[in-house]
Structures are given as C-alpha cells and as structure tokens.
C-alpha cells in the first residue's frame, strides 16, 4: 500500500479496492514502527486521522468525492492546526495549540484528505540540516548518519521512508527543494503569492512560500491543486486562477528551451552531483528539449542578500513571541523586561537567537540603509537576471544543492558553512519564482536533486517537465534500504 503513489491511491480509493480507514491505519502503523529511526514526525494524530478516514469513506461511498478524499498526508509543524499542537520545532511553541486552521490545512480538510500528524522541522524553519529542532534532529532514511536537509527535513524524510505518500512543506531559502534533493523525493516551491501564508508561522514574510512534497511530480501536481488558492486573509496572496496542474503533465517537452546557468556549474560543485544533473539534462535533450547556456551574473550575491533580508524580517516577525499571550513564559519573572528577555532566551534555540540578533543589527538605526536597503536593491538585480534569462528560455535547470547529504554534526559549529548549503536555491526565493527539485541520480549511495526553476506562475510547465523526465527515469521510484 505504501509504495503506491497518490495518483494510484486516488484510483484505488475511488474504486473502493480498499478503504481510507485501512490505508490510514497502515500508515499510522508504519509511523509507529519505523519513525523511531528517523524522528520525522513530532505529533501523530491517530484518533482524528481515523475519524477523518471514516468520514472520507462515507464521502467516497456517496460518489463525486474530490481527488484527495481519503488520502493520508502529513503537515509540516509550521501550519496551524485547530486543536493540535503546532510547535514550529521550537520550545517557544511546545505548548501552543492553535484555535484555528491555516488556510492550507483548511483546503486539505475540505478535500477530505486525512492528516496523520505533524512533521519535524528546523526551529522556526531556520536551518538546512534539521538539527535545530527542539524535538531532536531528523535522520536521512538513505543514510541515518547524514542529515535529511532542512528546514522541511521531517516532511522529506517521512515521504522518503513511505510514512506518508505526501506532505506539506515551506520554503524560504530552499527549505522544500534542498531536503527533497537530499532525501530523494520531489518537492515544489510555488511562485510567491500562489499558496496562502495565513496560519503558516512566519519566518521571512517576503520570501516564505508553502508547497507540497511527494515521490512524483504527478503527486506534487495533485497536492498543489488543493494547496494553491487565493486567500483574502493573506494580503500578499495573488488573485489568479489556479490551473489544473495535472492537465498538462503529459505534454511533450519537444522544443522546450532549458536554460543552464553557468554559475550553477562552477568549481565547487561535487563532481558526482554535476554528472547526475548533466545526465538528466541530456535525457531531456533526448526527449526533444533544447539546452541553452545562460548566465545569472549576480547569483553569488544571493547568499549575502538573503542573510540580511531573512534575518531582518525574522527579527520583526518573531517579536510577537514574548511570553505574554501564548507560547513559552519563563518561571517567576522579576518584571516585564525580565519576562521578555528570559522567555525569549529560554524559548528560542541558538540559531533562532543568532538570526534575531543579526536581523536586529541590520535594521537598527544607522545600519538600515547599508544592510536592508542595500540587500533589497541587490534583490532587484538578482530578479533582473532571471527576467532577462526568461526572455530566451522556458525553464532553468541545474543542481539543487552543491553535494549530497552531509554527515550530521559536521556543519553545526559554523553558521556560514551551513548557509552555503542553499547557494543554488536562495535566488529563486529572492526573485519570488517557482522552483522544484526531483531525484536525478545517486552519489555515494545518497540521492541527488535536479532543480527546475520556472517563470512566475509557470508551475504547470515545471511539473510537466519533471513528469516527462520521470517517465523515462526511475530515480524517483527507488527506496532507501529496508523501506520497500
């Protein structure tokens, strides 16, 4: 059952070959027996899941149920779930039980999807290794001594270990694509404004975007159909019709112009990663696509620009966690300042505190123009690179990250080394463009990701190319040892 894709599960549920209750119980059992090795799931909502599955079975029996009715999924623990703890991987929110659902959660509930639980993540989505979670690190199912990537490492590891056929995730600088690459699954970060951020705990508001993870591009399309919606409650959400992303999956890639940025293949890229990515590009070329070398000259500036903008916005967003109205409060505060300062020092982990301090520095009097203002200008230059590139090409492709999954603990002491993990993914967030990672090979027995970047609102074309690649490759069907 757990090796079926979501597209296949939809069919067997609709044809009543087995019920959602059976399917849900199967995945709950897998989480129960396997997750101690991965720590991918923070909260399991077995009782609610079985109830939702029974309701889904009734809808399925009545006919005309939506595609995802009865399909079990996991939510990243950054999406608020009514009545279910939403920790964001932090001690600060260890006791936080939201009284409402995020719009994304609501969309899946309306569709009748069954929520198995909430996935582990880097604290407040700040990290690329899932080692900053208050609930402990997530292990990569392909090599448990290595990281799964982050911040959506729990979602990626859960999908890779077949603990759920799909999961929600979020991406601020690569947090969907990088863990998808390191865990050998497919994941798409849509255009900024495509998916509602309401009820999705904010990290850097001008960069954050939710998106799905699953094993195949087709499954990502099915999940994105449900996840994407216009939402009045998110003032940055774009009011634009959501196409059926599955409708164009089978289009041919003949004549598709794929831009290959030379900056993404410079020295420093792991040779095995490069080989796998080049081989995937050659496969698409064999299907009739045309490869065009392009340049994104300001690429290297994306890391410094990001590490001003993201911490600056985080320092503002995280100021609401002060021990007053919800979340962690320190014991016996002497006065109000003491309550703020100690609640935040005790409730936030090291990396989160570091980013708040950096953000505060960049926004403080005398530094604003030199840092935040400057970074927003550089962001414009980075966007212009993409705008120019997309005048000549339909999609841009390259590696998702510089090398396969690194060993746990190996970058923990060096924040900058960790930040460079997202060197190929950050620019897309700064520009607000959609990007995807799909499995395209193995190096040192660990998965490699192919990154596909599209123009604004061109998710359908990205998914189409990814699906076509998956018709002639089998990297996405491979399972870690002991999983199948």
């Amino acid at each position: 059952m757990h090796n079926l894709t979501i597209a296949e599960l939809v069919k067997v549920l609709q044809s009543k070959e087995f019920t959602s209750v059976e399917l849900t119980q199967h995945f709950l059992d897998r989480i129960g027996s396997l997750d101690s090795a991965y720590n991918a799931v923070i909260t399991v909502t077995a009782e609610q899941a079985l109830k939702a599955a029974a309701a889904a079975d009734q809808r399925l029996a009545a006919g005309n149920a939506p595609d995802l009715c009865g399909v079990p999924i996991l939510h990243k623990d950054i999406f608020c779930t009514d009545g279910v703890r939403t920790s964001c991987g932090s001690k600060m929110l260890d006791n936080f039980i939201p009284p409402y659902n995020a719009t994304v959660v609501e969309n899946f509930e309306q569709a009748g999807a069954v929520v198995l639980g909430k996935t582990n993540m880097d604290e407040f989505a700040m990290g690329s290794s899932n080692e900053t979670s208050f609930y402990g690190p997530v292990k990569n199912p392909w090599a448990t001594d290595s990281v799964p990537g982050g911040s959506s490492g729990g979602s990626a590891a859960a999908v890779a270990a077949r603990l759920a056929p799909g999961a929600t995730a979020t991406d601020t600088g690569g947090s969907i694509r990088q863990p998808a690459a390191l865990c050998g699954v497919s994941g798409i970060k849509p255009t900024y404004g495509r998916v509602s951020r309401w009820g999705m705990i904010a990290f850097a508001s001008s960069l954050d975007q939710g998106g799905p993870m699953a094993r195949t591009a087709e499954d990502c399309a099915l999940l994105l159909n449900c996840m994407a919606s216009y939402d009045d409650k998110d003032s940055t959400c774009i009011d634009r019709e959501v196409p059926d992303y599955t409708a164009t999956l089978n289009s041919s890639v003949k004549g598709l112009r794929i831009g290959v940025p030379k900056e993404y293949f410079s020295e420093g890229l792991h040779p095995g990663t490069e080989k796998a990515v080049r081989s995937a590009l050659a496969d698409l070329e064999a299907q009739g696509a045309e490869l065009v070398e392009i340049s994104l000259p300001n690429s290297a500036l994306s890391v410094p620009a990001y590490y001003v903008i993201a911490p600056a916005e985080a320092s503002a967003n995280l100021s609401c966690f002060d021990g007053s109205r919800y979340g962690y409060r320190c014991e016996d505060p002497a006065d109000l300042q003491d309550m703020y300062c100690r609640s935040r020092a005790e409730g936030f982990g090291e990396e989160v505190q570091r980013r708040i301090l950096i953000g505060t520095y960049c926004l403080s009097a005398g530094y604003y123009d030199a840092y935040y203002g400057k970074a927003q200008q550089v962001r414009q230059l980075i966007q212009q690179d993409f705008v120019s590139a997309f005048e000549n090409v339909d999609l841009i492709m390259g590696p998702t990250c510089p090398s396969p999954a690194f060993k746990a603990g190996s970058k923990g002491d060096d924040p900058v080394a960790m930040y460079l993990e997202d060197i190929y993914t950050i620019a897309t967030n700064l520009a607000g463009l959609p990007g995807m990672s799909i499995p395209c090979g193995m190096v040192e027995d660990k998965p490699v990701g192919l990154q596909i970047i599209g123009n604004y609102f061109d998710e359908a074309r990205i998914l189409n190319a990814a699906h076509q690649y998956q018709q002639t490759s089998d990297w996405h069907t491979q399972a870690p040892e002991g999983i199948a």
Partner: protein
Amino acid sequence: MVPYATLIRGIYRAELTDNLMSIERSEIEKLATLSRIAINEETISEVSQRLGSVLELVDQLQAVDTDGVEAMSHPMQATQRLREDEVTELNRREALQAIAPETEDGLFLVPKVIE
C-alpha cells in the same frame, strides 16, 4: 565579490577566520537589549564571533554598485489590498485566552509594570 566556487569550497571561510570582523561587547549587549534576548556572560565572545562571521558574509553587498536601483519588497510589485470596512471576524476571546500563560477577567496578565 566572492565567487560561488570560493564560497562553496570554504576558502572564503578560511580567510575569514584570520581576519574576523569583531563586534564590540557593548554592541552585543545593545543588540541583546533591542532584541529582548537575555545573553549570559560566558557566551558573549562566542556570540560575537559567530555574528562577526555572518556579518563578514553579508558585507560583500557593500561592494555592489546599486546606484539608481530601486529596492524590491515584493516580487510582483503588489500593493496592499484594501477591503470594505466590515466586521468579518467574530470575537474569539475565550478560545484565544485559553492558550495564554495567565489571564484574569478577560485580560492577559503580565508582571507588574508600574511601581
């Protein structure tokens, strides 16, 4: 500007440790106050060093010519939407206060502010 390859291979990092930008102790204390984060004595030098290494990284921006470039705050140049001035959310005080650390008579309680 530091090229990608240098960044990825960590050469840049090696150069940094020799010439690490240091942040004054008083500056760290000021940041901690502005951020409302208590920092304990023993960790100040470590915090200073790590913040310094990140600031070295972001200082690369200073070398870029951005004269006449407009700052970008939203990828689609979207502007803030306005809506009709109508009540759309009901008061959910009880539900919202149920998760608060301390409340009384519909108020959030915090330590005494005025002596």
